[in-house]
């Protein structure tokens, strides 16, 4: 795509993205408020003792007594200024809460995504190159196994194996707390904690990418331009790298882009099993405590991340595949 078209493209996609995100926020807001129960009753219930006045006070303080559309309007105004409201349960602005725990989720999903994509594509390509041999069937079986296994169960089994029996890796948390580590030691410590959760989240998507890469590689290998390359006397290795792989990666990139957004869903499960302080776990706790502001905040972030991922994928795709005239 010619660089001259980039600003126009970004403007169009930006506008479209904004509309989609706004629609999501409004839809979520209405959905959550349609649900029975509200934060006031939660806090009243959990604070050991409560009476009518206490409840009314809480409701008034949370602004829940105002009509729904007014609440929605207040919330939307807030969202535009990135003030995602106030978490009554944690007595903290939502943005602060999310900002605190977003890096952990980004680290987890990013590591899982990178691991899944790199290993998935390599294994997929290997299986395609040696199609029909034992290597191919082994990779296919392994991929199918992790594709068919529930993520949380994989997590549990990894904890059971690596942490409980072998005691190689820590089974929870993001870092050993209390022990003041700095610089490389701290990084290593977080890395050690990251291995099992990232593997758990990554293995499922590794299977997906491996199967997809193998399928597209086999499909592209049938195409005419591969035969042309061989007719030119191009050595087999170069045929696979420069011709087959490059074309086979296009659908994998698109799929990876769309899937990236779904990693957040997976992170809820992984963060629960591994006590990873991310926004997946935050969303789940907020859900159980009916803390709407936090819930909406997490949805807002996840939808922004998904839209960004889709934008990135389209851009990457336009760069890799010249045929694509990227429209708004």
């Amino acid at each position: 795509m010619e660089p001259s078209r980039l600003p126009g493209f970004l403007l169009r996609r930006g506008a479209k993205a904004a509309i989609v995100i706004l629609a999501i926020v409004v839809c979520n807001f209405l959905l959550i408020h349609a649900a029975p129960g509200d934060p006031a009753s939660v806090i009243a219930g959990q604070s050991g003792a409560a009476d009518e006045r206490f409840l009314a006070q809480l409701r008034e303080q949370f602004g829940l007594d105002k009509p729904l559309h007014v609440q929605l309007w207040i919330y939307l105004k807030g969202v535009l200024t990135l003030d995602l409201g106030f978490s009554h349960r944690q007595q903290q602005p939502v943005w602060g809460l999310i900002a605190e725990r977003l890096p952990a989720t980004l680290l987890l999903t990013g590591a899982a995504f990178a691991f899944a994509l790199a290993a998935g594509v390599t294994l997929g390509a290997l299986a395609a190159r040696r199609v029909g041999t034992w290597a191919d069937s082994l990779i296919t079986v392994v991929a199918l196994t992790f594709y068919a296994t529930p993520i949380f169960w994989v997590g549990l089994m990894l904890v059971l194996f690596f942490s409980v029996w072998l005691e190689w890796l820590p089974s929870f948390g993001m870092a050993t707390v209390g022990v003041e580590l700095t610089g490389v030691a701290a990084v290593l410590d977080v890395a050690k904690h990251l291995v099992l959760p990232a593997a758990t989240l990554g293995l499922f998507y590794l299977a997906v990418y491996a199967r997809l890469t193998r399928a597209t590689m086999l499909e592209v290998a049938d195409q005419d331009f591969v035969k042309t390359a061989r007719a030119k006397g191009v050595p087999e290795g170069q045929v696979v790298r420069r011709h087959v792989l490059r074309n086979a990666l296009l659908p994998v990139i698109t799929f990876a882009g769309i899937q990236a957004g779904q990693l957040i869903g997976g992170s809820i499960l992984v963060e629960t099993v591994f006590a990873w302080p991310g926004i997946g776990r935050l969303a789940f706790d907020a859900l159980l405590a009916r803390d709407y502001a936090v819930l909406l905040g997490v949805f807002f972030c996840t939808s922004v991340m998904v839209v960004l991922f889709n934008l990135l994928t389209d851009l990457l795709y336009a760069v890799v595949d010249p045929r694509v005239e990227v429209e708004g």
Partner: protein
Amino acid sequence: MSLLKVENLTVALPPGGDRPHAIEDITLEVDAGEILCVVGESGSGKSITANAVMGLLPKGLAVKAGRIVFEGRDLLALSPEGMRRLRGARLAMIFQEPMTALNPVMRVGEQIAEAMRVHGAGAEAARRVPELLAAVKLPDPAATARAYPFRLSGGQRQRVMIAMALALEPSLLIADEPTTALDVTTQMQILRLIREIQSRRGTGVMFITHDFGVVAEIADRVAVMQHGRIVEQGPAAEILNRPQHPYTRALIAAVPQGAPGSAPPSSAPVILEAKGVEKTYRRTGGWFGPKPEVRAVHHADFVLRKGETLGLVGESGSGKSTLARCVVKLVEPEKGEILFEGADLRPLSRRAWKPFRKRIQMVFQDPFASLNPRRRVGEIIAEGPITHGAPRAAALARARELLALVQLDPGAMERYPHEFSGGQRQRIGIARALAMEPELLIADEPVSALDVSVQAQVLALLADIRARLGLTMLFITHDLRVAAQVCDRIAVMQHGAIVEQGPTAEVFGAPRHPYTRQLLDSIPGRGWTPPVIAA
């Protein structure tokens, strides 16, 4: 000593095929500076032979016996690496489908340079690219080199393929039906280009084709193949004018030529008239982006009289098919009138069209896509009449009769389309159209996808039906030979407009419009009139 000598080459088919060997006991030669045409219908094994020489046989097929001696060495004895070093350097190959023959995500110049670089040409490779592109007569070589393949037309891509193949001056060029997918005019340019380069560099060329016109145009020597065997081989003039082997004689007899039957008197009533029909396609650009327009049909008025066959002739993109589809409302033209026996069909609603559906029917091009794979043949034919209220039993009985009319055995009623050959399916398509007993039949390239021999049979069937039922026909084709044989009058179309129309003999004999002349010149082997073969 000849450049390429193939001796008793035999390649086996995987078990379960329709015959044990793909090709059997093939012996042929190609000398430097000579074009050998290997001709045969689909399934004859001509491509397998070409691929065997290049060592590019698909995994399932293995060479059983024979030798391929090239420049004194038996290629079959070479190691894969040895063979690889020859490919692209000493012998090269170009393929049939230009649209998919180039890597879509790599610049054209890069792909040509790669051909040289893999044979050790280093930095010098990039420098020679523009020179090669100019040699194949591509306008603005520098821009073409930087462009990506999807920006080039079919013809331009084939020229790139030729430049790529001849980059290292190979002594043998194998061309596997390089012009079959191209338009007539582009095909002629490519044939002349190959001829010119071949004579300039003395390259030996092994040219694979199924079109005897092309053979007549460029072949020095010819080898005719059937079911994996060479049935006849010799100088072009001998084979074309004095074919010995019955199969060759049948093939040549099937080449369409000769004049149509007596044209109906010009006083016959007008059935169909198109006036001022216009159709424009707007590409869905972005919200703000430019909206390029393609005017598919504009000045295309014509008249069709009862019992007459009008041919709409032109290259792909000329709008002939769109015009035909406007008549049956598969395409909605913006302006103009389509008068059928005086009534204007264009503005009619879907319900208002229903009575006319019985009176205008259509036959389609691709035999493999024009029949619903999930329904039995009997139902496909009877479906039309049943929709228009005919009782089921009567419709099915009528379908059985029609199968006989199109020379298919009645047992076909219960079978599914995938159990029939291309030619048979086309007959079923015709039977389906005739079931409605139409007055006007629109045939959109009915035989283009068929082999020559099968093509002849279907055209004969159409001629017979037309005579017997007095059918009026609008015949769309890009093959001028077929048009000459079938049509009473011809309308030549270019870029959406009819540039010339008149009785076939006049248009072929004394073409007035320059484009018509260029079209006629591009008919391969125009000089050769196939000998009349005694049946």
